């Protein structure tokens, strides 16, 4: 798996794994990047280059551990990125899964055979509520504190303010369980196309959360523990 540097073309990065489009979007970069290198794009958009490279490489490569984060990476830039990721979940991905789920249930209820879709939807609502709590905790407590705007003692409070912002693995596990329910344990009659739409939306959410958790664990965590 390649590790990209400042002289890599951004288009090569995107073409290697198009899901990285969401990552570059969160930096304000959109499609139509031409043949610009990461260095020139970062200069043009005023993006912290070490932060951009750390995020992109960590997102794409599970074996990549950015070195020397402290003092090299801009914490505010990272928090801006994570905040946009949170909004992407709450405003785009979660409503997308929910919309497909609702449609799937409405198309399946009329069928003769009973199915367990309603129970799966209830499980999804639990996952959604948990993810929204994490986001709320990020936006109201952790991020302002890390920016030096809110309660500066929050880093030492631990569980008093809820889960730490780099400790969301239970959530990852639940989304994976939900996908496995569809793949392995689904029964009854249902609309196949809508079912695939729900699973695809869940897989997109799972992948982004997994990679985002990696970013939080390998970049945010060392900065929080400084």
């Amino acid at each position, binding site marked *: 798996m390649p590790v990209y540097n400042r002289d890599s073309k951004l288009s090569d990065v995107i073409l290697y794994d198009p899901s990285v489009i969401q990552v570059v979007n969160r930096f304000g970069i959109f499609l139509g990047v031409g043949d610009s290198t990461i260095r020139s794009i970062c200069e043009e958009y005023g993006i912290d280059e070490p932060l951009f490279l750390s995020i992109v490489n960590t997102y794409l490569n599970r074996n990549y551990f950015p070195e020397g984060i402290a003092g090299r990476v801009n914490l505010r830039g990272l928090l801006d990125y994570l905040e946009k990721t949170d909004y992407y979940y709450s405003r785009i991905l979660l409503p997308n899964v929910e919309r497909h789920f609702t449609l799937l249930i409405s198309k399946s209820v009329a069928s003769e055979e009973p199915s367990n879709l309603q129970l799966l939807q209830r499980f999804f609502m639990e996952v959604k509520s948990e993810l929204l709590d994490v986001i709320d905790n990020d936006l109201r407590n952790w991020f302002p504190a890390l920016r030096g705007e809110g309660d500066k003692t929050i880093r030492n409070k631990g569980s008093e303010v809820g889960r730490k912002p780099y400790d969301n693995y*239970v959530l990852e*596990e639940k989304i994976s369980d939900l996908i*496995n329910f569809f793949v*392995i*344990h*689904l*029964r009854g009659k249902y609309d196949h196309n809508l079912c695939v739409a729900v699973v695809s939306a869940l897989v997109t959410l799972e992948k982004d959360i997994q990679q985002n958790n990696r970013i939080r664990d390998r970049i945010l965590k060392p900065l929080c523990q400084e």
Partner: protein
Amino acid sequence: MSRIGVIGLSSLEVMGIKGTLVNMPEYTSITTEITVFEHYQDFQQNADKLDLFIVGLPVFVSNIEFFMPRKARTLLINPEIKPSCSEKEEKNNSGVRQIFRNATEEEISVMLRSLFSEPEVKGNVSGDLSIREKEVLTELARGKTNKEIADILSISVNTVITHRKNISVKLGIKSVSGLSLYALMNGLI
């Protein structure tokens, strides 16, 4: 657990079916609920909660529009004597599995196994889990801790943890919420 609904059979026929299931050890632990319905109306109202239907011929014929879309889950009890050239008679003309009045216990269990192996039914049988694993899963779904489960089942906490790992591997489900949901879907709680 698999729920079997019986309709339109005599007491002796019901006893025969129950007796055959008792002698099928691989299903004894799961087919714990057999409901015998006196009236078709009651049966139909509860049909959504049933996995298999065992039905007498007159009731089947009178309500063929109900049973045909569910024929993969239906076993028809034919009051006639089995014809001598029997191979082709395992299903009737409509493609529904049937057993005849003079069927041996072995023939009935072959038919029931075939019915249980239907994909629509199999998903609910959860036969991959051992009895002990199902007990652990049931207690876990009731909100019990590893220590509490160990006390209830008189086993060590390490054994409970091992069972939990095996359950997760077999089902592909790791979280407690997911395992509880699985238990609920499969009638364990």
